[in-house]
């Protein structure tokens, strides 16, 4: 009891202290006090919560913590406003037409333009280039809310932001940014990302699309597969091998406008889900582009692709969260309304357990996604967290889609209710931008690096 009261008074001093360094110092002291009452195991588990042990323990004590973790309890006001705006838009403009877009495979051009006017198509782009100038957490929230309305539209937003604008923002010259980013912030034009090929998906280092220099031009030859948005895109980032002998260090990134002589599109794939979004092959036959269209230094294509996909993972995790949340909302709503055995089915434990499991899956994936986004904003390493976010969110989405149909029973199987669309839309999130298997490899390799014997 004595130890406990000593602890409380130290917490009091720390809480009232204005100087951050003093707080941290006293935080460590109070942690060591906790050691005497809580025992070594609690302290050890607190410490093992790398990479931010101090702030984690401080926020666990209800003290200041660094902004990143205390924000997980409640988002900053601006992010809340932004989230609410996107949610209103999704509820009023996207959810009513999502079924139609899916059935008729229609690209939501009007909605993409409206989202562009709101700044959602270029969330991270600085205002000087025409974007919204917000951080990655804001982008993650925007994609989640948009995907909650319509999964395909969420995919369009995510591909444009993370996969197309992302690499140009990070590796482009000022001239390239003006030419290739600014027109793509308004929603009038969208971009796409061409990395996968018929011969290699997960094996990105084995790109067989070739680029050779001929005078003042690059000539590209090859085929890219599974390119999202391509039928509606006005430009693409293409990865091609410039030096085959250097293996994956010989891949470079190029910016190609669409349409362009030498670039043609294959037939639109007939997909299981996200059908409002076009997916097709990109065929390059002696496609000539100026030398200035190379993105980043020669041979850095693989690095650009990997870094872009790291950020893109958070975008896809957010899309998966939106779809999972929509499936959960649909199931909970139905559980209130549908009666069986004399009461709403929400009273039955079998249904309650399903809903609880779905909610836990969504919320834990959401926290992982927010953490990854905050780490990226703080310019800290976020590869492991992004992979964990994408893995858990996509598995949560398929789980929630599946269970949502189960809760709805027969109604879940027909197109009158959106549950079946969520089930189909969710499936792709486990595959594109890095399959769940690749995510596990990424997480494992990061973990093994942390524990050097």
């Amino acid at each position, binding site marked *: 009891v004595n130890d406990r009261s000593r602890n409380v008074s130290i917490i009091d001093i720390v809480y009232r202290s204005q100087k951050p360094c003093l707080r941290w110092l006293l935080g460590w002291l109070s942690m060591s006090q906790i050691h005497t009452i809580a025992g070594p195991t609690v302290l050890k588990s607190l410490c093992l919560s790398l990479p931010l042990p101090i702030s984690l323990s401080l926020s666990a004590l209800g003290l200041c913590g660094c902004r990143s973790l205390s924000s997980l309890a409640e988002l900053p*006001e*601006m992010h809340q*406003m*932004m989230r609410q*705006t996107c949610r*209103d*838009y999704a*509820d009023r403009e996207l959810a009513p037409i999502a079924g139609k877009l899916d059935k008729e495979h229609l690209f939501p051009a009007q909605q993409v333009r*409206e989202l562009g*006017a*709101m*700044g*959602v198509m270029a*969330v991270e782009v600085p*205002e000087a280039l025409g974007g*919204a*100038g*917000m951080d990655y957490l*804001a982008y993650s929230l*925007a994609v989640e809310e948009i995907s909650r309305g319509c999964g395909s539209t969420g995919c369009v937003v995510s591909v444009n932001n993370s996969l197309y604008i992302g690499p140009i923002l990070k590796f482009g010259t000022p001239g390239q940014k003006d030419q290739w980013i600014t027109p793509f912030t308004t929603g009038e034009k969208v971009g796409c990302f061409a990395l996968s090929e018929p011969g290699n998906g997960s094996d990105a280092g084995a790109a067989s699309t070739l680029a050779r220099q001929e005078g003042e031009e690059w000539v590209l030859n090859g085929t890219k597969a599974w390119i999202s948005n391509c039928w509606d895109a006005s430009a693409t980032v293409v990865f091609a091998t410039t030096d085959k002998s250097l293996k994956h260090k010989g891949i470079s990134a190029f910016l190609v406008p669409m349409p362009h002589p030498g670039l043609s599109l294959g037939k639109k794939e007939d997909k299981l889900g996200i059908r409002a979004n076009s997916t097709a092959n990109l065929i390059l036959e002696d496609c000539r582009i100026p030398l200035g269209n190379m993105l980043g230094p020669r041979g850095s294509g693989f690095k650009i692709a990997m870094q872009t996909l790291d950020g893109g993972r958070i975008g896809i995790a957010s899309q998966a969260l939106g779809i999972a949340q929509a499936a959960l909302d649909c199931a909970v709503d139905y559980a209130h309304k549908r009666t069986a055995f004399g009461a709403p089915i929400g009273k039955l434990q079998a249904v309650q357990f399903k809903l609880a499991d779905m909610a836990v899956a969504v919320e834990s994936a959401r926290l992982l996604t927010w953490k990854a986004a905050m780490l990226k904003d703080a310019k800290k390493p976020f590869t492991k967290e992004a992979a964990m976010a994408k893995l858990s969110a996509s598995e949560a989405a398929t789980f929630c889609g599946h269970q949502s149909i189960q809760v709805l029973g027969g109604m879940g199987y027909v197109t009158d209710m959106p549950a079946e669309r969520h089930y189909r839309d969710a499936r792709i999130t486990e595959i594109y931008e890095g399959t769940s298997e690749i995510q596990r490899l990424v997480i494992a390799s990061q973990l093994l690096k942390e524990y050097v014997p």
Partner: protein
Amino acid sequence: MSRVLVGVKRVIDYAVKIRVKPDHSGVVTDGVKHSMNPFCEIAVEEAVKLKEKKFIKEVVAVSCGPTQVTETIRTALAMGCDRGIHVEVSGKDYEAMGPLQISKIFAALAKKEEASLVILGKQAIDDDCNQTGQMTAALLDWPQGTFASEVTIDGEKVKVVREIDGGLETIKISMPAVLTADLRLNTPRYATLPNIMKAKKKKIANMKPADLGVDEPPTRLAGVKVETVDDLVAKLKANGTI
């Protein structure tokens, strides 16, 4: 032709299912989603449109209520208003407050801010009073263009197309004036992300009704039930109402 005052009210969101409190004293408001009154959104949109067409220089968003109404003012700022005024009224006073007190506050503010136009929503979706706009105009002795479905500024006058029972009525009123927005006046915009960021930096001034010379709302007296119409007339004559 410089400044427009726009009133925004924080109400329970239109999509929420309203539930009555167990003690029947009112409606459940705790933890329920609130948002800006839809007619107030239309009013804000009209004011911002007028500013974009350069008819007016500044749009000021005003709301009366407890601290939570600052969220509504921030939404108005994110839609394009330049600054906000929060008239703080809380607790019992807020529950007792009605259109008369609000219009007194707006009248006082319109004079203080030297506004050329006061644009309000035609009614709030929680009480459906449809009184604040009209009362404000009467207190200020300004012309009013209510149920506006089209507003055009023509020099020193405002042409208002009003939706009335018989159809549409076009009137021309001189400024300063009070307008109330009806459903078909415009389609409110979604706040853009850059504007939401800018809204953070815009100022919201805080004041109390007393600062504007408006008295506390009177406590509501209980009603009296009578048996016949004759009794009703007698009672009304007795307390001097007729």
